[in-house]
């Protein structure tokens, strides 16, 4: 027994020892593993964070890949919208192959998570692929999610009541809430989302989750979950239709037809899922560039009576919009000053009443596309409040065309004085939409001031969806290639060291914008997509600038290929050989822009007055001409082998021969040219004239002729045209040379035109005639002759009957009662318009033979407003004479009754009718007038001879007895016979022509007799 007793004691100790050690080791191990698991879980949570970031990045990468692919398809045309890029084109079925331009939809690149991210080919014909199937999406949480599900934010500060805010990731369905409480607009009509943001609305489609509150469901935005497998595969599954328990429809499955690589498996499990949506910032209103007007300015809402945010232009008519104000109840005319209320209605502003104030140059609401913040904030803020938000656009002034001008002396009132800060705003640009909350100025307590106008965080939350701070978009054409700038830049002349310094700030900026990639000191021309210009007076220089020639080829290339999005036909297919002509016209159009840039003249100390300025130093003028491409407003057309540009250069639109009554041949064989003779009729109807030496009978009328050419400049423009002349430093002038005038005959006798060719050099400008901006120049321009009228020997208008060859062609007086006609034999004129350095433009103008009315001595006379002749004494010797208020055709003098009416009689003589129109078109012996202007065909021109400022030399400037008078107005008289050739490139259904064509053709055949 004893050994039995003693043995357990021995074993027990060993057990205790073993157990103790076990406990010790176990404790150590537990401690170790607990440490490891803590470590593991913290490492795991860090890895989770990384994974989440990777998943988010993968969504961004998918979208970037989609955009890159969609916008780089050669031959395809793409357009972006929120959530999608559409590509148009055909073909391109194999990846990487170019598309054929077409107007057919080629593919849809979805920028949101969807079952099929790229829909193309035959898939496009199946609506299921194009339209998302969102039926009962809310019952399939494993397949769909609501991207716009709000996050409830409980915002709290210590010691202040908290605020609950729902943060919608994409768009706040504010409108439905607003509609619920403000369902009617001011007119009593039901409001829609459009009442808050123009053109936008939300409608519930009724298929939504009924358990949601009314205001929550309206902006739900379902998108499909895309599952990410471990190997990076993105795949979508179908919701598994489980009908039992809480797990209803919460699982997802992959169909057997899904390729194995697209299915999750044990080896390639799901590691995450993503759902996303991509917005298009370019379809939002940019808070940095948009201006703003608000409907709040207009009590009754926006309608045709309201002009808030309107542009301004010179008012021209008396319409509501042009004048503004109200309609006068008596005269029914606009612009009525409301005497009862003592004002114009402010909201009825018009162009006349609400003119911009001095310095108010930003009246457009926003940039030329007139994007307006008022469309977004119109429900909250007034226009002036919005202008407090805009960083660079000033409000005030005419209040966007809704406020009356401040100084209304013209309407008999003092107006409302308003200050206008002429300094442009230079606030910081907003870096994000949320920054709209704060103003640019400092507030109190070292905090930023909030923007005036009551913009609240709440408003920003509601409208964030429509706003952006960055909305850049690529500037490419449909072919995906760079656009060409319309702004011409001075040539980078290799032989000129500092040609860039002659570019203005705007030139440089626009050149920079039209240059791809970085500016390079090595002058990498291949990156520059703007035209350069240098010589306005050369037909070839600018076109031959190497880069310009390259760009011409580039345009030829672009116009020879089909247009993505529209079809395979190109411009070259459409226009054929005219294509190059069109391109050349485009080049000249660009070349003709901004001819006389005056922005930097003052800063550079250069003369700002119209060239030529004899007072300015020649060096300054030369420098000025480097900045200004063509200070005279004239640009010679570009000529290529098969095309000619329009540029800004005169051509002929009409040529006329004017036959005029020049005097009388008496039956005694003498000739009188003096229109101041006294006339009467004898009892048998013969015309008698008292020439001072006795009474004679008139046997024939003397007829002379002159030619006039109506000039036409195809390009209208702001820069006024001043013709360079031979006395200017460059000794160049536009000249018109006519040959073959001596072919004209009247009554089988030569019309006394000079033989050979004669030339006229243009000079001066067409000021006062209103034509200096281009288009029709009238016939006066060629009459301004060279040399300058201040010096040199007199020259006479050469395209007229030469008095050295005879006093005129006698045409016998027709028997009473028979039509007085005379045979005019036409001539073929060669007309040549030339300019130094330019190929001349030649026309062959063929005047046909015709029987024409014999010119008579009927002239313009003064009359009163009823047309009754009043006075005839133009060249009476005692000034002053009244400014003629109008001219009325008088009857032929020979036909005046006996005794003549008082107006036709000379002073103190009641028996004889006296003519006083004199000296027209005499080639001699009229001397220069006191101002040095050669008398014949004196023309208009504001200058020393114009005392009343009407733009014409005064009647009174004619020296007494010189037979020289106001020719500018009286060149054509009622008794004249005019026969014209006019440019008529008959357009279908029209009798007239497009004169611009005359500038680019030598098609003489298009000049045809005037239809009248």
């Amino acid at each position, binding site marked *: 027994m004893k050994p039995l007793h003693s043995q357990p004691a021995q074993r027990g100790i060993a057990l205790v020892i073993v157990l103790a050690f076990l406990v010790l080791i176990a404790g150590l191990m537990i401690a170790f593993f607990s440490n490891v698991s803590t470590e593991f879980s913290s490492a795991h949570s860090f890895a989770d964070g990384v994974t989440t970031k990777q998943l988010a990045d993968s969504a961004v990468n998918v979208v970037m890949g989609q955009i890159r692919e969609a916008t780089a398809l050669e031959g395809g045309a793409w357009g972006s919208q929120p959530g999608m890029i559409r590509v148009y084109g055909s073909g391109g079925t194999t990846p990487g192959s170019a598309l054929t331009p077409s107007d057919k939809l080629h593919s849809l690149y979805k920028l949101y998570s969807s079952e099929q991210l790229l829909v193309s080919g035959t898939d496009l014909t199946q609506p299921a692929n194009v339209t998302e199937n969102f039926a009962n999406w809310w019952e399939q949480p494993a397949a769909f999610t609501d991207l716009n599900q709000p996050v409830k934010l409980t915002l709290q500060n210590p010691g202040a009541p908290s605020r609950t805010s729902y943060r919608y990731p994409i768009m706040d369905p504010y409108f439905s809430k607003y509609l619920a409480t403000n369902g009617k607009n001011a007119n009593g009509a039901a409001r829609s989302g459009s009442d808050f943001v123009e053109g936008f609305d939300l409608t519930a489609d009724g298929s939504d989750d009924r358990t949601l509150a009314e205001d929550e469901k309206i902006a739900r935005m379902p998108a499909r979950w895309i599952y990410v497998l471990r190997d990076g595969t993105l795949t979508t599954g179908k919701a598994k239709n489980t009908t039992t328990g809480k797990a209803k429809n919460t699982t997802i499955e992959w169909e057997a037809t899904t390729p194995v690589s697209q299915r999750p498996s044990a080896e390639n499990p799901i590691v995450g899922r993503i759902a996303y949506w991509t917005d298009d910032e370019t379809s939002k209103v940019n808070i940095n560039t948009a201006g703003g007007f608000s409907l709040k300015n207009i009590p009754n809402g926006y309608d045709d009576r309201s002009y808030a945010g309107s542009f301004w232009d010179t008012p021209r008519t008396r319409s509501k919009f042009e004048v503004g104000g109200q309609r006068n109840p008596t005269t029914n005319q606009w612009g009525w000053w409301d005497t009862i209320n003592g004002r114009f209605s402010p909201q009825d502003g018009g162009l006349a009443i609400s003119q911009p104030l001095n310095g108010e140059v930003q009246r457009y609401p926003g940039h030329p596309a007139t994007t307006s913040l008022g469309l977004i904030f119109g429900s909250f803020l007034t226009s002036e409040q919005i202008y407090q938000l805009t960083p660079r656009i000033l409000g005030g002034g005419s209040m966007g065309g809704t406020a009356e001008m401040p100084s209304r002396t013209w309407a008999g009132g003092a107006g409302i004085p308003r200050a206008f800060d002429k300094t442009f705003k230079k606030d910081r640009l907003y870096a994000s939409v949320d920054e709209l909350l704060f103003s640019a100025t400092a507030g109190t307590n070292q905090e930023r001031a909030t923007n005036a106008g009551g913009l609240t965080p709440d408003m920003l939350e509601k409208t964030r969806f429509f706003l952006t701070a960055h909305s850049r978009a690529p500037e490419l054409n449909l072919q995906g290639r760079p656009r060409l700038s319309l702004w011409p830049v001075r040539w980078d002349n290799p032989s000129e060291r500092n040609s860039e310094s002659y570019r203005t700030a*705007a030139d440089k900026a626009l050149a920079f914008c039209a240059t791809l990639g970085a*500016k390079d000191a090595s002058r990498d021309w291949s990156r520059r997509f703007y035209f350069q210009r240098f010589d306005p007076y050369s037909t070839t220089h600018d076109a031959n600038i190497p880069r310009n020639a390259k760009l011409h080829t580039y345009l030829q290339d672009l116009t020879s290929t089909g247009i993505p999005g529209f079809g395979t036909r190109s411009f070259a297919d459409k226009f054929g050989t005219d294509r190059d002509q069109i391109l050349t016209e485009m080049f000249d159009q660009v070349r003709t822009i901004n001819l006389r840039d005056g922005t930097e003249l003052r800063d550079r100390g250069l003369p700002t007055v119209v060239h030529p300025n004899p007072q300015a130093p020649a060096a300054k003028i030369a420098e000025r001409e480097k900045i200004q491409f063509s200070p005279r407003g004239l640009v010679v057309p570009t000529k290529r082998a098969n095309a000619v540009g329009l540029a800004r250069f005169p051509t002929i639109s009409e040529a006329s021969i004017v036959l005029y009554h020049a005097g009388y041949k008496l039956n005694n064989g003498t000739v009188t040219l003096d229109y101041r003779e006294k006339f009467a009729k004898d009892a048998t109807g013969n015309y008698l004239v008292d020439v001072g030496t006795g009474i004679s009978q008139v046997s024939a009328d003397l007829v002379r002729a002159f030619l006039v050419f109506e000039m036409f400049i195809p390009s209208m423009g702001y820069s006024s045209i001043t013709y360079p002349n031979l006395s200017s430093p460059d000794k160049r002038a536009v000249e018109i040379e006519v040959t073959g005038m001596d072919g004209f005959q009247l009554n089988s006798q030569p019309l006394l035109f000079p033989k050979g060719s004669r030339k006229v050099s243009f000079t001066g400008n067409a000021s006062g005639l209103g034509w200096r901006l281009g288009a029709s120049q009238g016939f006066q321009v060629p009459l301004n002759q060279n040399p300058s009228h201040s010096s040199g020997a007199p020259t006479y208008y050469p395209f007229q009957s030469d008095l050295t060859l005879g006093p005129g062609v006698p045409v016998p007086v027709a028997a009473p009662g028979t039509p007085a006609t005379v045979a005019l034999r036409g001539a073929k004129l060669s007309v040549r318009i030339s300019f130094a350095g330019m190929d001349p433009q030649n026309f062959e103008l063929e005047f046909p033979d015709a029987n024409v009315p014999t010119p008579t001595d009927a002239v313009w006379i003064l009359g009163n407003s009823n047309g009754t002749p009043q006075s005839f004494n133009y060249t009476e010797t005692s000034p002053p004479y009244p400014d003629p208020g109008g001219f009325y055709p008088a009857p032929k003098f020979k036909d005046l009754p006996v005794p003549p009416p008082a107006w036709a009689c000379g002073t103190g003589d009641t028996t004889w009718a006296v003519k006083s129109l004199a000296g027209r078109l005499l080639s001699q012996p009229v001397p220069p007038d006191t101002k040095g202007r050669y008398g014949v065909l004196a023309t208009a021109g504001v200058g020393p001879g114009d005392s009343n400022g009407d733009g014409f030399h005064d009647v009174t400037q004619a020296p007494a007895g010189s037979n020289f008078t106001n020719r500018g107005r009286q060149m054509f008289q009622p008794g004249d016979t005019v026969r014209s050739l006019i440019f008529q490139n008959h357009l279908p259904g029209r009798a007239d022509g497009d004169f611009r064509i005359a500038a680019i053709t030598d098609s003489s055949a298009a000049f045809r007799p005037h239809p009248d």
Partner: protein
Amino acid sequence: MKNAHFSRSRKGFTLVEMLIATSLIVLLLLFLVAMTDSTAKTWKYASSKTEQFQEARIAFDAMTRRLSEATLNTYWDVEYPSGSRTPATTPSRYIRKSELRFISGPMNTLVGGGVTKYPTHGVFFQAPTGFVGNSVNNGSLTNLLNTSGFFLEISSTDPNLPPFLESESGDLNPVVPPRLRSRLMELREPSEKFSVYQVTQPEEKKDDERVPRTTIFRPLSGSLAWFTTTLTSANPPVRRLADNVVALIILPKLTPQDELARVTKNPGATPLAKGYVYDSYANVYDSDATTVDPEINPKNQLPPVVQVTMVAIDEVSAARLAAISQTANQLRENLKVDRFFTDSTRLADQANGTAGDLTQFQAELNKLKLTHRVFTTNVSIRGAKWSRAQSE
């Protein structure tokens, strides 16, 4: 008897046996205890090191992520010669502009004034991070702009201590004893107090604003007030991201492609931030050149890439370091950190075998037996669109 004697003798141990057994057990136990203690110590050391560096890693991650969101909101605008923008004045040129500013460099250059508590570099910039002071009012605006900054600060007090743990100054028995540490700090100026728009900058003049590549542009006194005022205020809006970070090196760079092109073109030219200074306000030129090199002119541009390098030590090392350093200055001197990181061309090891600044600094840490780890990454700034064009 014999049997009985034998059986009695078998019933017990002799003293010698007992002594031997006991001493063996004691020896064994001692060995086990020692081993356990040593394991525990090793474990504690290892885990504390991991934890330490994990905090540093998370902080590093947060810092680089925030840095990548930096924005300048640049745009092109006309420049007026006289500074007045009226319709009557003619603009002289177009230039790239921005009202925001990105600045990085040695903190003694950035803050100036002989402040010694900020070792190595710092970076200050704006990002739309939506940090607000009044979250009830503005908390829903998550894209509001903030001025952010990252820098190191040596101090005895932990700025993240909750108020109930804070002690009065001079308290002999503080709740949390002061610990002299070098900490990675983040400056977050609440959006309501966002001040960069209010800081007066001079009118832009091409020549006036030229500075050498090693200098921060201070055209006016207080022109860096947009972050210095906040940083040096009584209760600055800063928070600790990580303890025991002893060096923060911020090196703005070009993208590898641009850098290669630049070096190919002009092998001898200075890199973007030779002296680690990067200031998006000034036109920068090199002291050996008279012209501004447009290839590497940071004027109103964000650096495309910022190489962020951070050296962290563990808490044990930090405590040891603190024990031998009484003041911030002493701590800097002990680390010898001021000797390094002034010339970015010397940061990495040279091709000729010369050890770079980073290697030398690590050698200094090893000499002090400070366990450390180096974190480094290249942060590409998403908002950077590096362009060589400056004005037109």
